[in-house]
């Protein structure tokens, strides 16, 4: 899509706000619709749009495949790790009270924040992984071929 000047300019302008919006959805999920999963999808979309309009190589320079693979695993570990912390302090798995035993409601807030972060990281990683896997096989098609 080298010749689509308008698309290229708009994409460059949009990618930043899209990522910001992803962060908003991520950390505002307690108050409004949204949460880790939706944020992860939006964050991944920022990278995917960049990859579609520019090229796979461009986006992989920012976010190399090996890093994406680690991210997808990291999110699961963050989530499960939060639960393990509760376990090691003598609570049930994923009992967020453990994060702030004197004030369980705060513990819940920390816990929800952490696990949503885990979900967000994994979903971003996975969506980008899948996009990379599909695109690295796709032949370059001319716009008219559709």
């Amino acid at each position, binding site marked *: 899509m080298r010749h689509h000047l308008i698309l290229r300019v708009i994409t460059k302008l949009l990618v930043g706000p899209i990522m910001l919006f992803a962060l908003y959805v991520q950390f505002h999920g307690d108050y409004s619709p*949204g949460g880790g999963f939706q944020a992860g999808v939006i964050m991944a979309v920022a990278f995917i749009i960049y990859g579609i309009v520019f090229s796979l190589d461009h986006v992989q320079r920012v976010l190399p495949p090996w890093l994406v693979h680690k991210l997808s695993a990291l999110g699961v570990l963050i989530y499960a790790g939060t639960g393990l912390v509760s376990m090691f302090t003598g609570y049930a798995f994923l009992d967020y009270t453990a994060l702030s035993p004197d004030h369980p409601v705060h513990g819940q807030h920390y816990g929800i924040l952490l696990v949503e972060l885990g979900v967000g990281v994994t979903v971003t990683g996975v969506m980008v992984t899948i996009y990379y896997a599909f695109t690295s096989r796709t032949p370059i098609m001319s716009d008219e071929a559709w």
Partner: protein
Amino acid sequence: MRSLFAVVMLSGVFSLLSALLFVTLDAVDVAFTEAAVGAGISTVLILGTLALTSRYEQPSKRSKVIPLIVVLVTGAALFYGTLDMPNFGDPNAAAQTHVAPEYLLQSPHEIDVPNVVTAVLASYRGYDTLGETAVVFTAAVGVLLLINGLRRRRRRNPKKDT
């Protein structure tokens, strides 16, 4: 409809419309997700697949009788099952009176998060969400195993890697 491109676009429209339906049914979180996933990610993935496979469906000579019977029987069974269901929106239905009110009553004290869906998703039923994360992770592992290997640092463009 033989053009798969049109099929994919229409299924994207279907997802978007169902997202609207979810909004009217008070499920804003679900609507958000359905719009992002059904109309967004799924459509992009199917389009990517079409680019790699084929954009037109070949006419098929398969018999349609057995599928029709399967569908009719299943549909009839489902219809039979609905006969004892409470009316739509009934505030006295079992689903509205047993567990759900406790979430709505207790979460302000126990979790203190305005979005009850988040409270249930991440805390009361947080373990399901952990499983959901694992499902997503499984999908990544699966896709990589099927159409791509685990990659380490790319060896192409060695100049930039140094």
